[in-house]
């Protein structure tokens, strides 16, 4: 799977291509548990394929790590939850600074980091999520550091203004948008709380999906079809005399 196709799939999966990545505290603790238990959720270099493909292709040569100018990337040591010798990074320590020339991808000899990734803004290393219970901005403090530090500012993170209700001050609340967030982790690194209240995780850990059977009414225009064409059902129809088991068995 190429980065582009995975991106497309990613967008399609999120129905409108938009999902809000802020989550509450309870979900957060679940996440940490999951992260601690399983490797699949390591934050990989730009262009990394999904975990299975990546592990199959990565020969643990360390060339991406060598070429990373910020010492962001490191190789997993023995005993770590991440497969030994594979590259990953810890955003709170050193995030990805999104080099325009993407040296890590260029260095990869096997394509474990997808060479078709040409624009670093298209990379999806992870997705930032906000713990709104501990985010200072969500309490009304004027922080919004994540927003100001974000390399894809006003696309990946925006700020909205809402009444605070318990005082006469507006709140400036940061929101993450998955269609633009690369998961670089600059926000996580910059977050001023004792433990970061915005963190990068693998999107599948946090992203939901609206059913295919529904569209948000105000986001797309759907004029009434003027030349409707009745069609026959093509899928499998209910079996004949369904419900007989229920009707013929048991008492009320």
């Amino acid at each position, binding site marked *: 799977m190429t980065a582009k196709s995975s991106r*497309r799939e990613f*967008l399609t999966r999120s129905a409108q*291509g938009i999902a809000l990545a802020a989550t509450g505290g309870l979900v957060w603790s679940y996440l940490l548990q999951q992260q601690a238990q399983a490797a699949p959720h390591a934050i990989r270099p730009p262009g990394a394929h999904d975990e299975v493909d990546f592990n199959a292709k990565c020969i643990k040569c360390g060339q991406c790590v060598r070429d990373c100018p910020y010492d962001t990337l490191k190789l997993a040591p023995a005993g770590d939850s991440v497969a030994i010798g594979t590259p990953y990074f810890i955003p709170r320590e050193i995030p990805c600074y999104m080099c325009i020339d993407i040296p890590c991808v260029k260095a990869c000899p096997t394509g474990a980091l997808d060479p078709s990734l040409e624009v670093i803004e298209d990379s999806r290393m992870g997705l930032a999520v906000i713990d709104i219970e501990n985010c200072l901005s969500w309490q009304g403090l004027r922080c919004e550091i994540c927003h100001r530090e974000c390399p894809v500012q006003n696309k990946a993170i925006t700020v909205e203004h809402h009444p605070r209700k318990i005082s006469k001050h507006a709140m400036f609340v940061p929101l993450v948008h998955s*269609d633009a967030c690369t998961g670089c982790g600059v926000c996580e690194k910059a977050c001023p709380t004792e433990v970061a209240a915005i963190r990068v995780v693998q999107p599948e850990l946090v992203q939901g999906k609206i059913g295919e*059977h529904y569209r*948000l009414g105000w986001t*797309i225009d759907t004029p009434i079809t003027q030349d409707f064409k009745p069609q026959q059902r093509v899928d499998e*129809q*209910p079996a004949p005399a369904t419900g007989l088991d229920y009707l013929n068995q048991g008492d009320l």
Partner: protein
Amino acid sequence: MGQTRREFLKTSVAASAAATVGLPISQTAQAATRDAEAGWQWDKSVCRFCGTGCGIMVATKDGKIVATKGDPDAPVNRGLNCIKGYFNGKIMYGKDRLTQPLMRMKDGKFQPVSWDQALDEMEKQFKKTYKEMGPHGVAVFGSGQYTIPEGYTMAKLMKAGFRSNNIDPNARHCMASAVVGFIQTFGIDEPSGNYDDIEHTDTVVTWGANMAECHPILWARVSDRKLGDEENVKLVNLTTCSNQTSDIADSEIVFKPGTDLAIFNYVAREIIKRDAVNKDFVEKHCVFATGPYDIGYGMRGTSEYAYDAEKDTQAKELKVTLDKYEAIAQRKKEGDVIEQKNRAKPVKHWQISFDEFKRGVEPYTLDFVAELSRGDADESLESHKEKLKALADLYVEKNRKVVSFWTMGMNQHYRGSWVNEQAYMLHLLLGKQAEPGNGAFSLTGQPSACGTAREVGTFAHRLPADMVVFNGKHRARSEKIWNLPDKTLNPKVGSHITKILRSMEDGSIKWAWVQVNNPFQASANANHWIAAARKSDNFLVVSDPYPTVSAKVADLILPTAMIYEKWGLYGNAERRTQGWRQQVNPPGEAMGDVWQGLEFAKRFKLKEVWGEHNVPGLKSEGFEDGKLPSVLDDAVAMGYSPEDTLYDVLFATKDNKKVAWPDPAVAKGHGNHIADKLGDGWFPEKALFDEYRQFTVNFQHDLADFDTYMRDDVRGLKWPVIDGKETEWRFNEKYDPYVTKGAGFEFYGKALKATPTGDLDKPTSKEKKKLAGKAKIFFRPYAAPPEQPDDNYDLWLSTGRVLEHWHTGTMTRRVPELHRAVPGAQVFMNPNDADKRGLKRNDVVWIESRRGKVKAVLETDGRNRPAKGYTFVPFFDESVMINKVALDVTCPMSKEEDFKKCAVKVYKA
């Protein structure tokens, strides 16, 4: 309710609002969406579920609904849906969808049969019963979920064809009390105002309406109004069980079941004491009235069919001993034994003076009402008093606008009609009615309770447009529009839905057809009716898309088309009529209800139904007692032949056949499986709707024509629709063309506009005094619920809804996501009550009453938070058939069952 908790909840609401405002869509995402939707065909429609009437858009591809969305152009919901509405596209695709008629064979098992076999047997059984027992031996269980053409087809078939008024909808259990309130107060059914009252008002008081769960989209509008002006806008939730509607309210008043009757009178008394009566309004537009108190409780007058355990409750139908509160409330003595003498005529009423009215409410002091009504033993009397006083303050405040909303808490009530009238009492005394932001507003539960059940009149006593079968002029007008011989229509009121069930038990109804509802799960005291359905000489037909509890006890099951598989119109709670086209064909051999009615009509010749019939109890001017005359000679004189079928005479008439199918201008390519199957070139839904419309035009109920409702630019219209314009607020000269110029307000409804006069206790003059153009302000006293907790059955039980499921769950429980979210009904109980019984959350418990018992999982910490002594169980779950436990008391006036009050015990299973 703690201040902090409320603040927290409000903040959470703000936070979730923040999370969805104005997200931009990237172009890539838009393109991806467009790709996925290639070939989708969109059309407007409405939500299948509650009475709110949200507009939706429906997309089809390959003969299937592939998606829906909230309709951004629909004024009701502006693109939003609740979580049931979100799944409209999935309700038709349950795995056990019925696709063939199924007949119960000699071995007691169902087997597939052809439509011909099914209809042959149905006809044979009908004719047998009809011949043996006459028009009163057959019955139809109708629905507030019938489309307008469906309800009209069945009402006409029963009333004009079979000359039987035994058709009654499940809407009887939903808003019959509201109807009595409207008709007795205003002389015409349905609300004065509309949903825009929410944005205009300063105060929303909910009385027995958990709008947060049961009218979720309207509650979002109320909440928005509150959040937009938190200081001034006040919300008060009056309830017997703390619920989610309280979460954003300024005040939650938990009251003891039935004491809403007293609280209303307390507020009325305050209005008078504080000199807040709007004298000008009341003098010009109102009169005062009252009626008898000894009207029974809608139970049977005999214990013949009662289980032993039920007999003590049933005995109260005939006489009750007044408790100390009733005695004060009714100006009598404690311990007085009151024979219920007015059981047969509960609706009679007479005009009284304002002084008499004042005397009536005088006992309802704050001290008396607070002591009587306090519902939460953990709340101090002082706190409860404060809240009652604050409630009165809000109503009385001179320039404050107030909307009172209610639903099943007031309608499903042993004195439901009274308590509905009391809501109007407050608003009329204050002159806060029928203007933007001011009004008592009865919400409905079903999508077309108003549009079909009420307006078309699929009730045992009704004809279209608020006419009634016992009024000779109304019958004559109906016979004229329907082109029927004089005296075809039966003047005797038929059986209401509870009576149909009771009659199946006592053998006075032996053939019944259930359409668009599930009465054997949805009716209280269900063990009786399930047994009755299985009696060998009863024949029960059930039309349904899915195998339901009712189907399970049937003799014949007819597979039925669902909402988007047919053309239809619904009317919502704000008088808005909305239409939709058929989007897809029904699966297999399933067919729409209109077709089923028409096809059945083909099997009857005039000579079989329009001859003379015995109708025991028929007594009406111009009729021989106990007889419906033969109208065959008159029919022949009118040009009919005795060999004509009901299909020819009632439905495929010369005029109707001119309404041609196909109809490309309206259909825009959409199909019509019913017109196709009939194959005789007419468009039944349109022809029947436009025929029905004749009842409404220039008769205070004006509807637009069928084509108008189908127009791209119409998202429903609120009747009366006059010169193409809808009416926003009725009875108000500024908005309503029916009001006489210069009158300001006029309550012009025509029903019951002359009554005897009298004092608080009795009519003193039989001479009828006219009150044209005026509304009645009723004095109705507090009366105690006939069954209350005692040492054995020591808890109150109320039943109701949850947001996720619709009625008996036959559709929503087939949506896997909704089933996963709320797989079963729980019994909600106060944690202290659970402790006392040695029960823990998630224990399986029995809930037992005098009538039956069911098992459910105990919940002590959830969406409903009952006070000590109360339990709540939703009724959607057929594996927790709580209606086996519930009591079939009805409001004696409306015959609507009280699902909200009975006594139970709960113990470990």
